[in-house]
């Protein structure tokens, strides 16, 4: 900086200069204020008459008209969410309206119990002055005409036609499509003190979950305005259709889902709890993303009553929960595919054998297998799902390599899917221990065997496993799942941009062959369940049975029986056709017991639906000389 200069002249000069400039500033400000006063004079004195007239009628007012909400479609255009017209009743209050009396009179015309009435009174009290509140929505025609006839005696009440969101399939798509619900106070304050006025429109619904929430703005469209002439009290005197501003309808969202597969998924689950995810393993398109049990989204549009919500949230099979991607489970034996691949890549000879005697003593404890498999090489160990082979293979490879392989297949990751709440789960390695276990930051060798059979810290979700199978099946590309086919006219990029899988083709082929033997060799763990009866079309898969708790405490030897919440989770992952992979899927049955018993039959049924919808696959079946007649479940010629 400067040395202080305090020559009197300098100080004096600065002061004089400042005075001159400050005087100029004062002058300029004066001119500015005079200009404002002049403008005020022009508006308030010269043109006052004109504006007085304008304010008395306020001539025109523009009432917002909400546009129709965009449709949500499946891959072939089947409507998953649409709108239907509905009659409704609005009540606008001012100081002349006795709310209590109006509600009493209304309750004689339309059904209204005390709880509903109390809620309405609260809504009306909270609404901004003169903002209409939807008193009754979705009236029948009889109710509508009854109220309309009596309308003149009901001050502030108007009946009009609005639109209601409707989900034709009820619950099957809820966890993907989501639902719309009433706008609440936080929706309005969230966007600031001057909220989007359309939010205040009576009966307006905002996307609350899933695709409805994620694409709320494009689905909403742009509101139009209805030009009306109003008097000074804001009552409509006359409409002026010529001045209406048309609304822009919301953009349709086309998903990659297949309505047939998704609907069938909810059916095959019945009362079971779990998830099914199917991908097209060539493009990454998500054909099915189901979580069961589900719930009827239409109930949420209307507004759930307290007991309804309580019943849903307290049911132990958790219908409100999206089990396909917001819940993580140990992958169990399905993870052996990753361990095997990591071992092959690390140079382990697949012909190396281990002997399985149902129990293996290592590290001062016993490690169990579900039966004595005898001498096992890698192929057989996948086919028969031998734990003892994989305990030892995991030890020879180490956690870091297994984890690196698993991550390349999408496990432990989240994907660009417009459903909020994806949980990445855990693919543990030594870095994970360092980071999350500050008191015990070392990976112990004793933790590796559990990881080798997909237990221990490992936890994944059904979407990740589906991506894993899709990448295995694809064999070359690290495809990513794509759920949205198009937003309006904008086609979304396919999931094939992910780059190549950095693994030797021969190793991938080895794992795929082993998976094929699971389903097609009589000794495979899912041989019985995987006979699709589709002639030459074969499936490849892997079972998984994941412990939910340690059996060491003596709480049951294998968790297929006993209390529901203690039973094992059942997994099945598969792809088909084996020789020309198109569809890849993962099925989770929460507390379902054995993977082969609980999950595999569901997977087989859904795979059959997908395969039979595919024209190329059908052609292959009918062209086959040994076509068995397409009876589902019939044993195929082998």
């Amino acid at each position, binding site marked *: 900086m400067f040395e*202080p200069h305090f020559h009197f002249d300098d100080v004096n000069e*600065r002061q004089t200069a400042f005075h001159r400039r400050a005087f100029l500033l004062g002058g300029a400000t004066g001119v500015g204020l005079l200009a404002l006063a002049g403008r005020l004079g022009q508006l308030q004195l010269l043109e006052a008459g004109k504006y007085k007239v304008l304010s008395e009628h306020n001539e025109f007012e523009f009432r917002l008209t909400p546009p129709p909400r965009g449709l949500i479609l499946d891959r072939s255009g089947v409507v998953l969410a649409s709108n239907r017209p509905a009659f409704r009743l609005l009540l606008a209050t001012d100081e002349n309206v006795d709310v209590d009396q109006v509600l009493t009179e209304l309750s004689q015309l339309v059904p209204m119990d005390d709880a509903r009435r109390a809620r309405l009174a609260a809504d009306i009290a909270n609404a*901004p002055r003169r903002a209409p509140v939807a008193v009754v929505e979705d009236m029948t025609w009889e109710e509508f005409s009854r109220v309309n006839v009596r309308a003149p005696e009901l001050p502030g009440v108007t009946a009009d036609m609005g639109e209601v969101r409707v989900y034709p399939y009820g619950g099957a798509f809820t966890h993907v499509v989501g639902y719309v619900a009433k706008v609440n106070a936080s929706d309005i304050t969230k966007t600031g003190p001057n909220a989007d006025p359309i939010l205040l429109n009576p009966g307006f619904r905002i996307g609350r979950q899933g695709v409805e929430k994620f694409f709320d703005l494009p689905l909403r469209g742009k509101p139009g305005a209805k030009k009306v002439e109003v008097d000074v009290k804001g009552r409509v005197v006359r409409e002026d259709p010529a001045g209406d501003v048309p609304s822009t309808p919301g953009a349709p969202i086309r998903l990659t889902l297949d309505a047939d597969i998704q609907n069938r998924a909810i059916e095959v689950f019945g009362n079971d709890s779990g998830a099914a995810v199917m991908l097209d393993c060539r493009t990454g398109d998500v054909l099915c993303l189901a979580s069961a049990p589900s719930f009827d989204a239409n109930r949420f549009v209307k507004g759930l009553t307290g007991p309804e919500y309580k019943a849903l949230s307290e049911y132990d099979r958790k219908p409100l929960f999206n089990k396909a991607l917001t819940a993580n489970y140990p992958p169990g034996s399905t993870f052996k595919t990753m361990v095997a691949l990591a071992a092959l890549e690390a140079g382990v000879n697949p012909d190396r054998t281990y002997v399985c005697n149902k129990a293996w003593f290592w590290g001062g404890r016993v490690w169990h297998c579900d039966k004595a498999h005898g001498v096992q090489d890698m192929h057989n160990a996948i086919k028969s799902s031998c734990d003892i082979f994989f305990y030892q293979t995991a030890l020879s490879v180490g956690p870091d390599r297994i984890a690196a392989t698993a991550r390349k297949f999408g496990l432990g990751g989240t994907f660009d899917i417009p459903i909020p709440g994806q949980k990445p789960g855990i693919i543990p390695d030594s870095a994970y221990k360092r980071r999350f276990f500050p008191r015990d930051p070392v990976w112990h060798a004793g933790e590796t065997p559990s990881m080798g059979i997909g237990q221990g810290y490992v936890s994944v979700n059904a979407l990740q496993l589906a991506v894993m199978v899709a990448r295995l099946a694809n064999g070359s590309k690290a495809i990513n799942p794509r759920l949205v086919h198009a937003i309006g006219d904008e086609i979304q990029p396919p999931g094939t941009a992910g780059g190549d899988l950095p693994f030797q083709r021969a190793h991938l082929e080895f794992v795929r062959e082993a998976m094929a033997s699971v389903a097609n060799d009589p000794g495979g763990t899912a041989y019985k369940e995987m006979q699709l009866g589709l002639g030459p079309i074969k499936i490849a898969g892997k079972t998984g049975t994941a412990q939910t708790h340690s059996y060491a405490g003596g709480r049951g030897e294998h968790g297929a029986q006993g209390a529901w919440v203690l039973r094992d989770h059942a997994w099945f992952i598969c792809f088909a056709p084996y020789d020309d992979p198109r569809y890849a899927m993962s099925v989770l049955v929460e507390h379902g017991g054995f993977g082969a018993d609980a999950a595999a039959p569901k997977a087989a049924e859904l795979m059959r639906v997908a395969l039979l919808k595919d024209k190329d696959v059908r052609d292959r079946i009918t062209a086959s000389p040994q076509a068995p007649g397409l009876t589902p479940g019939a044993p195929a010629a082998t």
Partner: protein
Amino acid sequence: MTDSALTRPGERERLTVKLGEIDWLLAALLAAITGVGVLMLYSIAGGTWGPWADRHAALFFFCFLAMIALGVTDLRIWFAVAYPVYAVGLVLLLAAAVIGHTRLGAQRWLDLGPIHLQPSEIIKIGLVLALARFYHSLPGRYAGLSWWLLIPAALILVPAAIVARQPDLGTAILIAGTGAVMMILAGLSLRLVAVGLVGLAAAAPLAAMFVLKGYQRARLLTFLHPEADRSGAGYHIIQSKIALGSGGLMGKGFGLGSQAQLNFLPEKSTDFIFASLAEEFGFVGCVSVLLLYAAVIVIGLRIASVAHSHFGRLAASGVIVTFTLCVLINGAMVMGLAPVVGVPMPLLSFGGTVMMTMMAGFALVQAVRVHRYSEITSGHGALL
């Protein structure tokens, strides 16, 4: 108390003397303007104290006490904290740009637990202080035209650019405008000012085409042709003009403004409160309030002129410049003379952070008045 008593050494340091030196007329004018604001907020809330009038009054009360307390704070302390305040403001501004909370589509707020901080308000005061301190230490001969002026230019442009990116065009204009006027007051070559004005006039259409965001451009276009979009952005301007015009000479009377009462007016509690005032109290009311503002400005500039230290002169005048720009821009906006940029009418508009900044600024003005005879001798601050 006679003048001679005040010349005794140390006499001016006594608190009672300092309190007597506060410009109570200025304080009363500020209270009067705020009083009008409270009345209007009461009226447009439909004759209720909530949700605005009571909070506006309470906040002013506390800010008023704070103004007195800060007003008797030694000017050398203000001088010493000038750069730190600016630095803190700038850091918070950057922090808000990176991690800030998006509200109203703009990243202006920093969430610090229960406090929502708006760093652009801190930087308003910080900039005035920093510029005043810089010019205080800069020999007068450099203030006209020299390379040294790149420093104040950077002090102004960096925060203005960040704020403009938030995007908060109104505040960015205020910061840049205040800074520019302060440079002129400090003696910037008038030739350079003329060149700058010409350049600005030439650059404005280009900026409108390429720099402004879509909605900002829309506001400009709407300003030029409000009738083209009567239900959208033009609505604000039309309704505001109807409110003003229908007020006439004497206004519709307190609590009787139908434009505001019936919610035709947008942002009636904040940016457009002057329109409600115009509707209910007419030309007479408006001109009276403008006269109150004019009185504040005149008193403020007078305080700046009599200060002995260059720091005091520039600091006080900087605050007054911000205040003046707010009044002129908001007035022009409400009357349809300027595009809607989101600048509040000081003390009249509801808004906590803006009031706090304004009152902090007037605390500085009071401090300059109370310590008008003190010389700040060292370029680095005498106290700290």
